[in-house]
């Protein structure tokens, strides 16, 4: 199963997990990104490049499925307005054993941060500002480059 979705609705973890679990894997690794509730952000808005985001998520999911022989892979990214504590992104990878599931999960979230056209705008105390990219994200994504 390869599932890549951009959606405005909240991410239904229970549903996504059972869909992944249905594929007979020995291990499932997941990562969920949340709007942090501890740093004064009142709302977060996610803008995206419609069409290009779906293609980017699908390309990442397919790449991970091939590289780690995954039985199931899911990548879901929310867009629109979100509150602290809400899920922004969910990635899940199912494999026969734990190492490929864990690695694929780390790959997916690292590369999603740099390869998918989403932009975050935070509102703090009434002031909205676009989130600046972090250099550490590029470094994290680069470690997954494969030799040609």
């Amino acid at each position, binding site marked *: 199963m390869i599932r890549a979705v951009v959606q405005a609705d909240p991410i239904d973890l229970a549903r996504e997990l059972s869909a992944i679990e249905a594929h007979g894997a020995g291990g499932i690794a997941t990562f969920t*990104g949340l709007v942090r509730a501890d740093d004064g952000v009142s709302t977060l808005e*996610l*803008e*995206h*490049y419609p*069409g*290009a985001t779906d*293609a980017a998520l699908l390309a990442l999911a397919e790449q991970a499925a091939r590289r780690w022989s995954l039985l199931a892979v899911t990548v879901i*990214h929310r867009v629109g307005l979100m509150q602290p504590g809400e899920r*922004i*992104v969910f990635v899940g990878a199912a494999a026969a054993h734990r190492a490929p599931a864990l690695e694929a999960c780390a790959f997916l*979230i690292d590369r*999603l*941060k*740099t*390869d*998918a*056209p*989403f*932009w*975050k*705008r935070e509102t703090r105390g009434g002031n909205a500002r*676009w*989130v*600046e*990219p972090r250099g550490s994200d590029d470094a994290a994504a680069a470690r997954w480059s494969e030799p040609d």
Partner: protein
Amino acid sequence: MLYFAWVREAIGVGQERIDPPESVSTVTQLIDWLAARSDGHARAFADRSRLRAAVDQLFVPLEAPLGRPREVAIFPPVTGG
């Protein structure tokens, strides 16, 4: 043209139809040409190091050749996930 995030806000619109001259053959040259259209464009495109581009939905370096695309997008580095 498609614009996103603060590029879109500076320009004031999220998309526009353009008809650049034949001499515009790279993304950088397209940005140079667009920058002259309005103060908003000039402001949005002032710092090239903060711009990224996609040609027909494919991420490309700014110095990439343009070809004859149907859709070009200019935007800041992505910050999703």
